């Protein structure tokens, strides 16, 4: 490994060289005392690591670091400081230095460790960059494949539908007498043709939808929607078909249903599919469509109950699989691709919901799906520093979370109990009780025990104290000062049960 030592004091240079030689005889150390010379060397030769004194007669470590980074180079850069200048070293690290080492009595022992650590960090960084590059590449390929498939689907759709349009309309024109009288037998055969064309059209729609779902190409236009309105639309559209078959079609909708985030067209498609299935498989009686709130599950449920033939228990798990039709030949008469329920399942799952069926063979079936009701996230901020509270609150408000704040630990615990937030952001140094004690108290209360906590501190040492026996931090933490994106990313990773609103 080639190391460039930038140090103006000849004694220090000599000493450092000796320490390095002793640490690892294979280290090749080059040195200079001038910044200009150092930059020239760095540009010309290849080093694996730079060890740079903070103060140089003609420049500073910061200047050299900025120059190197300005040229787009990434080299493990370690700052050597005298004791008492750690603050400067930390600043340099924020500018991109890998680490720092203090020239004190422990220098001889710490330097090799710091070098090793910087190298490890460098290697890990390179490895990560490589992986990221590979990931980008494969993402790009996937994207290309997706586009090809999507274009293909769109082309196939057009190519299939255009001739179908002519066939369908040709039949319709003759069948409805627009092109002159036809006799009973002609009418009978044309009606058969029409039924089959309509079936072919549905099949094409199903296959295209499914192909798009498979390639995740089906777009979802999520918006706040009212499930009861969609149910009413779909039921209305099926009234005639049900009546023709002599079936009743009723609704039992719970009033005041909460709005949920959904794609109305897609949910309509699911309901249409379930309802037309129910009508298809029911010969007597009818269908009731109901909606209900499931407070405990934080979801709403839609249920279609029919008085049809029902489904055998052993067949229930097969229902939502693709290309599955139950009952073999007999079932073929009723038509369909066997994709309808698979498509419905995909759509509901895209909404983070569930779809399932219950049935008593011979008595009827029950098809249900649930959609999650999303609440707006509530966050409790506990920090004695009003400025930090203001900053955090502003970050959250921009993202439409609800923030509650407390300047003391005791009040924080009380608020947590009362408000049951989705996340608590907790500073360790508080004026009354410590953050650790707040954690202990929260963990001791049944209702607050499982609320995720994000620790915050300006002192990394303090955060280290929260490490468990395995050496890994027990709680997620963030050190102050933090950047907005980093803060929000950490916070939102802990928020899984609610949404950020719109």
């Amino acid at each position, binding site marked *: 490994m080639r190391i460039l030592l930038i140090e103006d004091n000849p004694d220090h240079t000599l000493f450092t060289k000796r320490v390095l030689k002793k640490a690892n005889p294979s280290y090749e150390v080059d040195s200079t005392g001038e910044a200009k010379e150092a930059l020239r060397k760095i540009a010309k030769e290849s080093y694996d690591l730079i060890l740079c004194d903070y103060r140089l007669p003609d420049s500073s470590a910061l200047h050299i670091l900025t120059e190197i980074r300005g040229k787009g180079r990434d080299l493990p850069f370690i700052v050597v400081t005298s004791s008492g200048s750690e603050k400067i070293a930390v600043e340099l690290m924020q500018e991109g230095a890998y680490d720092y080492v203090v020239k004190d009595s422990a220098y001889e022992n710490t330097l090799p460790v710091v070098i090793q650590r910087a190298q490890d960090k460098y290697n890990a960084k390179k490895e990560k960059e490589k992986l990221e590059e590979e990931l980008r590449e494969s993402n790009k390929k996937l994207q290309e494949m997706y586009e090809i498939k999507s274009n293909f689907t769109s082309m196939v759709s057009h190519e299939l539908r255009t001739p179908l349009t002519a066939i369908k309309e040709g039949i319709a*024109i003759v069948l409805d007498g627009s092109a002159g009288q036809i006799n009973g037998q002609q009418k009978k055969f044309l009606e058969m043709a029409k039924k089959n064309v309509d079936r072919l059209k549905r099949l094409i729609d199903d296959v295209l939808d499914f192909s798009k779902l498979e390639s995740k190409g089906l777009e979802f236009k999520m918006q706040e929607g009212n499930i009861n309105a969609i149910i009413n639309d779909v039921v209305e559209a099926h009234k005639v078909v049900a009546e023709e078959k002599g079936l009743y079609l009723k609704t039992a909708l719970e009033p005041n249903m909460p709005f949920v985030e959904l794609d109305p067209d897609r949910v309509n498609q699911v309901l249409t599919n379930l309802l037309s299935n129910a009508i298809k498989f029911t010969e007597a009686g009818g269908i009731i469509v109901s909606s209900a709130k499931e407070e405990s599950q934080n979801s709403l449920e839609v249920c279609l109950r029919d008085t049809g033939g029902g489904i055998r228990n052993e067949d229930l798990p097969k229902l939502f699989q693709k290309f599955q039709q139950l009952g073999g030949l007999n079932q073929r008469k009723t038509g369909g691709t066997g994709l309808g329920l698979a498509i419905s399942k995909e759509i509901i799952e895209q909404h983070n919901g569930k779809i399932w069926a219950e049935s008593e063979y011979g008595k009827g079936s029950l098809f249900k799906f649930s959609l999650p009701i999303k609440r707006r996230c509530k966050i409790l901020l506990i920090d004695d520093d009003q400025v930090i509270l203001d900053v955090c609150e502003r970050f959250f408000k921009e993202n439409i979370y609800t923030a509650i704040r407390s300047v003391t630990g005791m009040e924080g615990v009380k608020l947590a109990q009362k408000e049951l937030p989705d996340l608590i952001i907790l500073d360790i140094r508080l004026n009354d009780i410590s953050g650790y004690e707040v954690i202990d108290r929260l963990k001791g209360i049944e209702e607050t025990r499982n609320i995720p906590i994000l620790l915050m501190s300006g002192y990394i040492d303090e955060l280290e104290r929260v490490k468990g026996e395995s050496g890994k931090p027990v709680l997620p933490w963030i050190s102050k000062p933090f950047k907005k994106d980093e803060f929000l990313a950490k916070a939102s990773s802990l928020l899984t049960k609610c949404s950020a609103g719109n």
Partner: protein
Amino acid sequence: MMKKKILLVEDTPTILKMAEFRLRKADFEVVTAQSGEEALEIVDKERPDLMLLDYGLPGIDGAEVCRRFKSDERLKRIPIIIFSATLEDLKRVKEFGADDGILKPYESEGLIAKIKEHL
């Protein structure tokens, strides 16, 4: 009462014939064009009350035809209904400047109702 005049632009001859037949049966006067260029050429003379426009045309496509109609003071008031076999095109009708869309295969009742809605 004068019959309303529909300009039907469609490059697939069978669909053109069938749709023309339907529209005449529904008591509309129909003029046809098989490309966007032809539609632009005859529109001044024909002065239609509405245009039913296939999207995937040879030469200039449906979007371009819409753009030219809607940027022309004399033509911008003619309602345009996009007539397409691709759902994606129909989702973008407003973006093209058209007033509505209808998917092929179509139901004749739906087609006629939609046309009447815009007249």
